[in-house]
């Protein structure tokens, strides 16, 4: 057996071995309550729900280590920061809603969201300029409404 073949076999064996630690991402409880104009809702469902909700679709490669480790960490953090499945909860506290709307506007406007690796991996992550504008407009208006409702 050549050194190169042995290297490949060792690599494959290592990838097979780490599958015991693959950490597949699980979806939690869907609370619902996310409402937005149709164009905005459609864009957010397509481009943001993949990480920022409890109802993403998981392609096969996201179940395989080490990709699953990375996805697990990214989705966990994304859900902690903004989870559209608990959107109704944010709206209960206008100050929190204003923060979330503000962050959405900032992230979409700056191009930080959706992240580059998602845009590279999936067409779902590539928002058109019109979709970005629609989300920004919605977020600006939502923030203004939240601040009006905020008694503090």
């Amino acid at each position, binding site marked *: 057996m050549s050194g190169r073949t042995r290297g490949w076999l060792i690599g494959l064996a290592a990838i097979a071995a780490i599958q015991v630690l693959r950490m597949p991402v699980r979806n939690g409880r869907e609370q619902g309550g996310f*409402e*937005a*104009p*149709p*164009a*905005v809702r459609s864009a957010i469902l397509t481009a943001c729900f993949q990480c920022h909700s409890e109802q993403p679709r998981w392609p096969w490669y996201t179940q395989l280590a080490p990709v699953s480790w990375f996805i697990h960490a990214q989705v966990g953090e994304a859900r*902690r920061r903004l*989870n559209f499945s*608990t959107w109704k*909860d*944010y*709206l*209960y*506290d*206008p*100050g*929190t*809603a204003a*923060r*979330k709307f503000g962050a959405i506007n900032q992230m979409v406007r700056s191009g930080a969201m959706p992240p580059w690796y998602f845009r590279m991996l999936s067409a779902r992550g590539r928002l058109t300029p*019109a979709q970005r*504008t*629609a989300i920004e*407009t*919605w977020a600006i*208006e*939502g923030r*203004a*409404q*939240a601040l*009006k*409702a905020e*008694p*503090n």
Partner: protein
Amino acid sequence: MPCRKKTIFTFLTAAVAGVMAFSQPVHAAGATVASVRFSADHFEPAKLTVPANQPFKVEVTNADKKAIEFESFDLHRERVVRPGETITVYMAPTVPGHYTFCDDFDHSVAEGAIEAR
């Protein structure tokens, strides 16, 4: 649809959706108020007890010289509190349990907790 009309349409639907969204929450006037004060890099008291299954409010006072971000990932709340400011955070009825909060601007600050029972 021409671009200008589309933009106006999007703006109007966003405005209507925004008004609808914020006409929903009704905050009970007699809700329990729990107060917490932040100073010298810690929350005081570190543990608040509130009744479960009832709406409540948390009054957060920042007596420190730096801004904090009162954040509860468990209860989905995120608020910036400037130095010297007191804010009210509205909480929906929650099931009995232990919910943590922190200063998300500074993770060296010890976490606080809300006990609903």
